[in-house]
């Protein structure tokens, strides 16, 4: 039986999506697959996920609601169904998260017809991977404090500067780049570019090592890098406005819009871990304090899902952005506390790195815990997100 609220188009879409996913499981592979897109390390892994994204795209599960003119499938209200079905099926994550959840919304909202036709289709298929150039070494959570300069020279821009925490840069064709085009205005002095990176002169990519010892993001140096003015998105000085479009989508994406990140429900994983861990002579799953902690996580997890559901019911939202703007903070901190609980439950076995055969679930818990800080810090730390929530949603005075 299907939901009473879906349109006929949506019902048909859902049935097709479900059938396709059942008939087309992800290919078997001998590769060691990463826990999330951010841990992608090798070309082979990238090709595996690129192939999977292409299949999903061809099956209509990626770009569902995007116009056929830009390579999409022209549906309405079907992408969230596709995301749910992929998540439910435990499908692999979609590789091109920056392209899908950041570049495409920005280009559709701010781009020229030519830009839309040039960039959207290949991002949907996974042919062209995107990375994001928002963070700088000195800027931290103050995103408007960009120091990378783009100086106009006829129909070109010459870029000099230094970006950090750039995930996917080593595999990316393009970068969404925010750069300073005027020193006079903090916010209005920024502009937005669709910058080529792969093999582009003046662009140097240097991998950074995370605290876990894994690779996963990069420093990107620009030295007299030349960008054609046709790659500018929106007007000169409108970079901040575009960036806000992007970031709203990025945080919103944490509700799973990019396809299922993890194939097993995290609470099920915690319960399974507790069943296989001992604590004071009995299974941790029989320890009531551990049980209480797991159920707390389960409630938080269900709350996040139901928030996403309620956000789509206007009658149950006095303020239209109140729920939407919370999801980033909630999702990232839930992931963190969930992983931390896993570390605690694993006890002595949480000391083990992923290469130790005795590490529970290939060392998932301590690595997931440490990697979770990437999410609570990046894109404006959660401290800044709380300022924004207090100011924009509750109307309290600015703290900065």
């Amino acid at each position, binding site marked *: 039986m*299907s939901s009473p609220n879906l349109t006929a188009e949506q019902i048909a879409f859902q049935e097709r999506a479900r059938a396709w996913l059942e008939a087309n499981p992800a290919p078997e592979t001998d590769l060691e697959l990463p826990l999330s897109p951010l841990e992608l390390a090798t070309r082979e892994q990238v090709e595996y996920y690129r192939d999977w994204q292409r299949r999903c795209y061809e099956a209509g599960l990626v770009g569902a609601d995007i116009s056929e003119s830009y390579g999409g499938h022209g549906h309405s209200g079907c992408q969230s169904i596709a995301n749910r079905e992929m998540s439910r099926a435990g499908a692999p994550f979609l590789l091109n998260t920056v392209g899908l959840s950041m570049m495409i919304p920005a280009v559709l909202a701010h781009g020229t017809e030519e830009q839309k036709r040039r960039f959207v289709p290949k991002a949907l298929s996974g042919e062209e991977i995107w990375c994001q150039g928002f963070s700088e070494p000195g800027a931290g959570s103050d995103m408007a404090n960009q120091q990378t300069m783009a100086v106009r020279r006829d129909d070109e821009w010459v870029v000099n500067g230094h970006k950090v925490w750039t995930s996917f840069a080593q595999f990316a064709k393009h970068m969404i780049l925010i750069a300073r085009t005027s020193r006079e205005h903090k916010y209005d002095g920024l502009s937005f570019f669709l910058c080529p990176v792969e093999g582009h002169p003046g662009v140097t990519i240097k991998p950074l090592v995370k605290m876990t010892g894994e690779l996963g993001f990069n420093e990107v140096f620009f030295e007299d890098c030349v960008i054609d003015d046709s790659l500018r998105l929106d007007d000169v000085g409108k970079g901040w406005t575009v960036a806000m479009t992007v970031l709203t989508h990025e945080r919103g994406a944490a509700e799973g819009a990019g396809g299922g990140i993890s194939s097993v429900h995290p609470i099920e994983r915690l319960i399974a871990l507790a069943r296989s861990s001992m604590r004071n002579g009995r299974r941790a799953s*029989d320890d009531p304090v551990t049980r209480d902690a*797991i159920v707390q996580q389960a409630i938080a997890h269900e709350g996040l899902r139901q928030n996403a559901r309620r956000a789509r019911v206007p009658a149950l939202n006095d303020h239209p952005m109140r729920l939407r703007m919370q999801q980033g903070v909630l999702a990232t901190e839930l992931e963190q506390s969930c992983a931390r609980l896993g570390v605690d439950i694993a006890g002595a076995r949480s000391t083990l790195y992923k290469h130790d055969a005795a590490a529970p679930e290939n060392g998932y818990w301590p690595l997931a815990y440490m990697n979770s800080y990437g999410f609570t810090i990046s894109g404006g730390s959660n*401290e800044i997100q709380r300022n924004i929530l207090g100011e924009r949603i509750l109307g*309290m005075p600015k703290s900065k």
Partner: protein
Amino acid sequence: MIDSPPRDFGFGPDEEMLRDLARKFLDESLPVEKLRVLVAEDHDSVYERHELPRWDEAMWKKIVELGWSGLAVPEEAGGVGFKRVGIVGLVEEAGRHALPSPLVATLNATYVLDETEGASDWLARVAQGTTASLAMTNAEGSWEPSEGGVSAREEGGDLVLDGTAYFVQDAFKAEVLVVAAHCGGDRALCVVPTSSAGITLVPDRIHDLTRDQATIRFEGVRVAKENVVSRDAVGALERAWPSVLVTVAADLVGCAEWQLQTTVQYAKDRKQFDRPIGFFQAVKHPLVNAMLDIDRARSLVYNAACTIDYGDRDEALKAARMAKSAASDAGAFISDRSVQLHGGIGFTWECDVHIFFKRSMHNQALYGDGIYQRSKLAETMIGEI
């Protein structure tokens, strides 16, 4: 269980209209200034002179005319048969106004009656405005449907009740009691007018100013056969339990939202160190955290109501326990911050914050707090120990 419960929780135009009407009615009939005069004009009256907490009976008559008290009565018994998701929307508004009334007690009793075969007459009376309350709890405040302090014996076809029921909510506003009584190996569910011979209502002295609570003694209370509406009180209570939990959770959420908005407003108005205190992250961030907690609880309340309406019983109980756990904890947190961030004034009787603080504290405990709900959830989600 149907495959996909409605994505909007089934909260449609009817539910929205009822909720909006309720909000308007309560905004007009019971602004906080009026609430203060009604329940907290004089601190000695309840706490020292032991008068019953006051409520507005004329307003209640209007509420009955609006049909709120019979919302949960099914259509076949002459009621509106409203879905739970609409009812929680209404109860949220009652909580947001700290409405003193037998609304929640009557709804909770209705849910239980509706799970029996023999209560259609009583349900019809509730639809017409009869108020009711559940009498099922023992002296320890146990919320287990299988426990209780009243027993029944058969006598000439009738039942005769003896014993004591504790923590009966708004008993002095209820015209009838829905009593679960041990009867041999079973428990019988009886509907008994509060005015019956042999019933003594002893008022509990409680903190909450927006309700009453009583200890009720039953001494040879005779219950006619037709008022013994079920011989399986435990089953009826268990089936009704998700609705009971989610209704109290909705009250908590509404109450918490008032506490949040009132404290936010205070943080904008109140200046210290030449700035509104809402400038300071030590004020702003806790209020943001309170908002996150309240929204989580609210979403879980609508999910639980929807699962009762459209899902299966086990899922409904699980969803309702999650909602009550989240609502109790959200209520405790914003209650704490609402007093602390109001500073000295929040610590006084003249500030309205304490009225909501006490209603919330009462509801946090009622039918089990967060720890309790989670221990029950663990049994279903992880398994018995």
